[in-house]
C-alpha cells in the first residue's frame, strides 16, 4: 500500500538524530509491547507479512504521528480483534470477559531461545528456474496495490541491474493476505542514484533492493 510506511525519498523529516548510549527500550511499556507481539505470533496464527501489513495499514498521518512501539501495539490489538482472540469490551475492561479461543502452542520460557534460534527462514525449494541472471537489466513494474507489497515506490518504473539471484522466497504480497506463501525467485537489483533521483541523485551512489520476480520485467 502507498502508506505512511513507504518513506524512501521523502523530504521534510529533518536530520537523523543519533542518541548517545541509547537504551534498548525507552519505557517499560515498550518492552511489553515488543515481547507480547513476539509471543502472540504463533498462538495468534499470523505470519510476519501479516504483522507488517497490520502495522502499516492505517492512515498515513496517523502512522507518522505514532511512535514505533505505538504502531506495534496498535497492530497487535487489531490482529487479535480481527481473529476474535480479544474483544473490544475486554480491552475496555482490562480483563477477560469471554471464553478464550483455543490456541496452539503457548510460548514457554524454556522455548524462547529455541524459537528465536530457529527464526523464520523464508527460502523454499522449487523446480522452477529463475527468469533473470546477474547482469540482466530489469525494470521494476509500476504497480500500486492497496495491500501489502515490498516494492518501494521510489524504484517503481526504474531500470536496474540484477546483481544476485538469492533464491526462491515466500512472497509477501500473497502471504500477508493469507493467500499462501506462493514462493517466487528473489533478486538483488541495483539502481544508479541518477536513475532513481534524476539530477538530484548522487552519481557516486547506488541503491540495491531485494525484489521478487513478479515485481520485475526485462528492460
Amino acid at each position, binding site marked *: 500500500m502507498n502508506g*505512511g510506511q*513507504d518513506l524512501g*525519498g521523502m523530504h521534510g523529516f529533518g536530520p537523523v538524530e543519533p542518541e548517545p548510549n541509547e537504551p*534498548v527500550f525507552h519505557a517499560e511499556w515498550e518492552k511489553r509491547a515488543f515481547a507480547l507481539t513476539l509471543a502472540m505470533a504463533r498462538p495468534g496464527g499470523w505470519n510476519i507479512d501479516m504483522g507488517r501489513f497490520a502495522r502499516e495499514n492505517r492512515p498515513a498521518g496517523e502512522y507518522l504521528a505514532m511512535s514505533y512501539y505505538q504502531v506495534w*501495539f496498535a497492530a497487535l490489538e487489531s490482529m487479535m480483534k480481527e481473529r476474535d482472540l480479544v474483544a473490544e469490551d475486554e*480491552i475496555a475492561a482490562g*480483563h477477560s470477559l469471554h471464553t478464550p479461543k483455543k490456541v496452539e502452542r503457548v510460548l514457554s520460557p524454556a522455548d524462547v531461545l529455541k524459537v528465536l534460534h*530457529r527464526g523464520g527462514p523464508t527460502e523454499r525449494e522449487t523446480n522452477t528456474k529463475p527468469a533473470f541472471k546477474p547482469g540482466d537489466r530489469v525494470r521494476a513494474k509500476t504497480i500500486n496495490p492497496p495491500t501489502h507489497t515490498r516494492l518501494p515506490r521510489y524504484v517503481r518504473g526504474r531500470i536496474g541491474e540484477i546483481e544476485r539471484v538469492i533464491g526462491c522466497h515466500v512472497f509477501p504480497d500473497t502471504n500477508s493476505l493469507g493467500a499462501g506463501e506462493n514462493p517466487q525467485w528473489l533478486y538483488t537489483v541495483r539502481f544508479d542514484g541518477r536513475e532513481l533521483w534524476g539530477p538530484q*541523485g548522487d552519481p557516486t551512489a547506488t541503491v540495491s533492493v531485494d525484489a521478487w520476480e513478479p515485481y520485475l520485467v526485462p528492460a
Partner: protein
Amino acid sequence: MAHDHHHDHDHEHGSELSDMQLRTRALETILIEKGYIDPAAIDELIETYEKKIGPRNGAQVVAKSWVDPQFRKWLFEDGTAAIGSLGFGGRSGNHLVALENTPSVHNMVVCTLCSCYPWAVLGLPPLWYKSAPYRSRTVADPRGVLADFGIALPKDTEIRVWDSTAELRYLVVPMRPAGTEGWSEEKLAELVTRDSMIGTGVAKSPKELT
C-alpha cells in the same frame, strides 16, 4: 513515524506514557487470563534482547574477519553459514549477507519500508534507524545522512546503499583501523561499533579506545 520519541521518558509527557503503560498492562492481563501467553516467557524475551543479543555478537564476527582470512572469505561468500559457525542466526538472521567496506566502497543499510535489521548480530535497532529521517533520506542522500553522523567520505568513494526489502539481513564489515597489528580478536572487537556495522560509522581507532 514520530522521531522525537526518545524525549518521551517516563517523567515527561506523563499522561501519554501512562496511557500506553495502562493499555499494554491491560492487554497483557487479558492474554494471561485467557492462557494465550506465559508471563515468564515475556520476561525471558525482554531479557534476551536487553542482555544477550546485541552488537557485541556482530563485533565478534567482524573482529574474526580481520584476523582470519579463511573466515573472511567464507563470510562474504556465505554470510549465513559463516556467522552461524559462531552461534549467531535465527530470528532476523536466517539469511545473512556481509558487505565489505574498502577504501573505495562504503556500504550502508536501511529499511525504508519498516525496520528490518539483523537482530541476530546487532540486537534490536536504535530509534534513529526506525525513524522517518533515516528511512526517507538514506536512499536519496546517503552523504547527507553520513554527515549527520559526523562522517565525511572522500568525494570519489562509491556508496552502496542496501534497502532491506526482503528477509535478507545485511551486516556491514568496516575496515580494520590502522595501528592494530598483532591485536587479539577480543581487543579488536572493542573497536567495532554498532554504527560501523550499519554503515553510519567507522570502527574506532586505537586511540579512541579508553
